Each structure stands twice: as structure tokens, then as C-alpha cells.
């Protein structure tokens, strides 16, 4: 087993598949010698050259459109959008085209397209460079969504994404790029739709997404010292979504807290909670609680730390539930 960062793990998954699939092409801005805005592509340009690692002009919509065109005509593409906030510039191509094209063309084309984008929620880069917009896409049928929180999951999910015949949105939190886990030498795939228990526990289920996972684990540790046993689950993919594992955990613990960096209202936590209500109402010992990004434009500078959940906010929500 090698120990590597999530950045390296994603890079490795893409490199392996670039070697295996000559039809795989990367599109984006600053993905050439620069290696991607956050360095995820380091070395790929050198290894695969400018035909396949295609640095291009600034035009998110056409970049996704070109990727889609490649995907429906015998190639496979990965498009990088530099910050998740910039999905706003390519929504039609993602939502009305990529997600629906297999459907509305009656299955005549498949769409092996991966759109990668980083969430930059924890760096103080301001209202237009800090958003977590995954709920928008979970709302849209026809997309698959991976949202890993560590190197091991990221590699296995990216490998799966790169063998998919359907469009995948692959969401990475920049804060996690530098975090390390063990990653097997041998090839492995993590299917979409399987959540993962990162830490077993029996008093409360804590569902954590993307950038909140380290905070959730820290909160769980904090609470263990107080005798509260927290089960931390990372859904890992949002579409398809592993409702069953969460229901199973909730049936054991009777309590659930859901945490994400995204805005609170109409965020993914509301959806998860509603599914629990639908499937495990009788097991609920307390209302499901969410600990989320605040419903405010995200300020530049240090103030952003007030906006996203930290371990203390999570821990105190759980304490609130237990009392």
C-alpha cells in the first residue's frame, strides 16, 4: 500500500485510465504544463501531450459542450471547471444537454463524460469562489455525482467514473487535496451509490459530505471522550445515493445529524433527512439536525470560517440531540 494525498490519488486514477484508453481526452483551462489550478493534473501534460491534455480558452460552456461532443462520438472526455462556482457558466450543457442527451436521443448515444470541479469553501476566496452547489445537480435526473472525502475513495470513484457510459460530476474539496490515506497498489473500483462508514458508533449517525468529513471525525473523537459514540458516514456519491445504509444506521442509533459546507436551505441535508423520514420515521428518537454552511453569501477573508461548519458546531449539535 502506498500512502498518498487525495490530489495524487485522483491524478493516478486519471493517469492509469489515460494509459489504458487512448480515446480519453482532458479539457479545461490551465490543465497543461500548469497542471490544473490546484495541481491535480501534474505530470499528465508531460506524459500525454497537448493533443490529449488540452489546455484551452476561457469559455466554460463551450468547453463542456466540446467534451460532450467528444463523448457522443467515440471519445471520452474529462472537463475541469476551475472552481465549483463556475458551473453557473455551463449549466445548460451540464443539465439540459449532458444529463439528458442519452435520453432524448432515444439511447442512440452514450455520454462518457466526467466533469471535475473543486469546491473552495474553506479558503476565504469570497462570494464567487467558495460555493458548494452539489444540491443543484442532485436535483437533476441523468447525472451521476461522486463527492469523495479522501484519497482511497477518490481513486476508486474516479476509476469508476472513467469507465462510466453516463455523465459524472466529480466534486472535490480543495481542503482535502493534501490529506493522505493508504491506496492499494492493485487496481480497484468503488461503485457509485455505496456510502461508507468511516467510523462506527452507536448513539448517533453523523452524515458528513466532502469538506466537512475531517471536522465530523474530529467531532466524533471529541464526543467519544464524553462517552457519546458517533457513527460517521460519508455517502461518497450523491447520485445514485445510498439511502439504505443511512437508514440502517439510523435504525441502530435513532438519531442523525447531517453536515455539509453548502448553504442550508435546499441543501443535500434536507433531502437526506426527508428520505429518513420516509423510510425510518418510527426509528427517529429526535428530529434530524443539520449543521451546514450558513445561508449567506460567503464573505472574503477570515470571516468565512464563521460560515462553514467546524467540529465544535457539529459536536454541539450532537450534544443538543443527546440531551
Amino acid at each position, binding site marked *: 500500500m502506498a500512502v498518498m494525498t487525495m490530489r495524487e490519488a485522483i491524478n493516478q486514477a486519471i493517469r492509469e485510465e489515460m494509459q489504458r484508453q487512448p480515446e480519453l481526452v482532458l479539457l479545461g483551462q490551465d490543465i497543461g504544463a500548469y497542471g490544473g489550478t490546484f495541481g491535480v493534473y501534474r505530470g499528465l501534460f508531460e506524459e500525454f501531450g497537448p493533443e490529449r491534455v488540452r489546455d484551452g480558452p476561457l469559455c466554460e460552456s463551450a468547453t463542456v459542450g466540446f467534451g460532450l461532443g467528444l463523448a457522443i462520438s467515440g471519445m471520452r472526455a474529462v472537463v475541469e471547471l476551475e472552481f465549483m462556482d463556475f458551473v453557473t457558466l455551463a449549466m445548460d450543457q451540464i443539465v439540459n444537454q449532458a444529463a439528458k442527451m442519452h435520453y432524448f436521443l*432515444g439511447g442512440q448515444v452514450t455520454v462518457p463524460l466526467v466533469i471535475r470541479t473543486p469546491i473552495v469553501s474553506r479558503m476565504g476566496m469570497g462570494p464567487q469562489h467558495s460555493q458548494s452547489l452539489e444540491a443543484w445537480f442532485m436535483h437533476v435526473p441523468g447525472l451521476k455525482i461522486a463527492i469523495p472525502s479522501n484519497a482511497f475513495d477518490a481513486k476508486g470513484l474516479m476509476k469508476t467514473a472513467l469507465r462510466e457510459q453516463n455523465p459524472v460530476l466529480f466534486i472535490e474539496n480543495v481542503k482535502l487535496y493534501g490529506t493522505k490515506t493508504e491506496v492499494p497498489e492493485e487496481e480497484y473500483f468503488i461503485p457509485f451509490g455505496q456510502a461508507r462508514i468511516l467510523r462506527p458508533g452507536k448513539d448517533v449517525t453523523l452524515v458528513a459530505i466532502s469538506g466537512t468529513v475531517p471536522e465530523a471525525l474530529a467531532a466524533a473523537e471529541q464526543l467519544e471522550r464524553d462517552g457519546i459514540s458517533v457513527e460517521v458516514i460519508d455517502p461518497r456519491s450523491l447520485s445514485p445515493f445510498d439511502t439504505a445504509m443511512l437508514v440502517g444506521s439510523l435504525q441502530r442509533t435513532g438519531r442523525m445529524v447531517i453536515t455539509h459546507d453548502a448553504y442550508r436551505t435546499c441543501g443535500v441535508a434536507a433531502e437526506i433527512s426527508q428520505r429518513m423520514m420516509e423510510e425510518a420515521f418510527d426509528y427517529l428518537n429526535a428530529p434530524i439536525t443539520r449543521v451546514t454552511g450558513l445561508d449567506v453569501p460567503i464573505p472574503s477573508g477570515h470571516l468565512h470560517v464563521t460560515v462553514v461548519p467546524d467540529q465544535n458546531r457539529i459536536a454541539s449539535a450532537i450534544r443538543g440531540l443527546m440531551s
Partner: protein
Amino acid sequence: MIAATQENIGMLLALYNRMVMIRAFEESAIELFAKGLITGSTHPCIGQEAIPVGACSALEPDDLVLATYRGHGAAIAKGADPRYLMAELLTRTTGCCKGRGGSMHLCDKEKGFLGTNAIVAAHIPIAGGVALSCKLRKTRQVVLCFFGDGASCEGEFFETLNMSALWKVPLVFICENNGYAISVPTSASQATPDIADRARGFGIPAVSIDGNDVLEVRARTSAAVAHARQGYGPFMIECKTVRWERHSAFSAGRYENPEEAQRWKKVDPIPRFAQRLLEMGATVEQLNTEEVVARAAIQQAVEFAMDSPLPEPESVYEGIFAKPGT
């Protein structure tokens, strides 16, 4: 200039056939819509038939085409079977897109017709990507992308002009400038008369031509396709034409300018081409035969569609994702 040889006359009669077929297809679509058999909308290309027929006739069979909701003509011109197209308009299970797409989403991958799209201009970058795919796979295919004057104001069009010129992809832009978006005339959507100028700003060669002259469209497209196929990158042809009908069978149509319509009916591309054919030595009987054959094909298409089943409610969850290995 096309010499009036016997083979050429045969080929030209085939173009005439296609133009009539498209006209008949659209007339049937309007009729079926009026009868309530088409749910949603439908956008006829009556009056514009010379463009898809002329342009697609300049292609090899494996060349690729993408078009808009007003793309029934392009689908037929590229060789799609009108039965499956008509069944799609009527959202029958036998439709080319299994009755899910409807009038605005036609496709025949086998024939190289990669689909029409209901979002104005959204297919343009997709066509760019398809062209890039051809280039990277070295298939020598060329991609034709039809779009309207309205579409030529959308950002994605320009983004694609830039990217396709930069990457020298084999893409021919065919602008069907029919003078109107829905109700907005080009005089209210652009400051300059020629959309072709926009392409030139990116270093893309471009011409503005009479889009109601099928042979002109064919000749210009041939040259553009040769340019693209030889690796010189994209080319744009702006075809000036007119839309006779309302924007869609659904639209209210209060924007119509009856005088203008009358003026344009005089340049109806079908009788105009018939006249030309007669001058080149075709006979009235030959033209009549093509007309009868083409109209019969559409009549059959309508019957085929009407006889086909509508999808069952339970099927609504089908077809969203491709299965692994497809």
C-alpha cells in the same frame, strides 16, 4: 456549374425529391399538430428546404450533422427514414428517439445525423466537440452544424467559433438566416447585415449566399467541406432565406408580415429549382414522378406513425442511463 449530363440530372432530381419530401413532411406535421396529434410543439422549415438539401448533398455518407428543433429537413436531407421521424413527432415508441424526444429531438446515428436540440445554440459547441473527435481519431469526417440567425447571438456560438478556429476542427457552420428568431427580426437583434462577419473576426472564412438556391448552397458547402476535410479548419456559410410559417405550429403567429411572406413565396426554392431543372433538360414527367414518390413516402410515414403505439406510463423511468457495456 453543373453540366446537364444524364447522371447529373438524376442526382439533381434526387435533390428535388428530398426538397419536396421535406415540404410534404412539414405540411403533414402542421396538419397533425392542428389535429392535436402532436403534443408540445413543432417547428416547420417550409421555405428553407434548399439549405439542408443543398448542404447535406455535399457530404459523404459518414459525415456528421447536428441541427436545431427546426431540423426535420436536415434529418431527411441526411437520409433519416421519415417514418421514424414522423413517429417521433407523434411521440410513438417506434420514433427514432423512442418517442421521448418529440419534434425537437430527432436523431439517426446510423445515417450520421447526430441530433437536433431544443436549446437555441446549445448544439453548436457539441458539434465542435464532435468535429474535434473526428480530427483526433483521424477519420477524415466533416461535421455540419445548422443554426439560425437567432442562435448567432448566443455566447456559445462565439465560444465555438473561437475554439474551432483555434483547434482547426473540421466543422462547417451553416447559418440559416431566415430573418427572424421567434418574432424578433434580425434588424432588432444585430447591428450589421451579415452574420458571416462574425466568423471572420475569428479568422474563419465565411460567405453569405442565397439560401433559396439549392445548387448554390450545394456548391458552397462542397468547397467548405473540402476546406475542412483538408485540415484547414472551420468554415461558415450564411444562407439567407425566409421562414414562411409561424415560428412554430404552437406560436400565435401575430408577428407575421403578410407582405414579406408574399414577396418571399415568389422565391420559393422548390418551383425555382424545378424551373432550373427544366432548363437543364429534365422533363415535367420526371419532376411529377419525384413529387409523387416523395409525397407518397411521407404519406406512408404518417400512416406508420399513426399505427404505432404511444409509450406506456410505466415506461417513464426507462432510458435515462446507459447500461454498462453499451
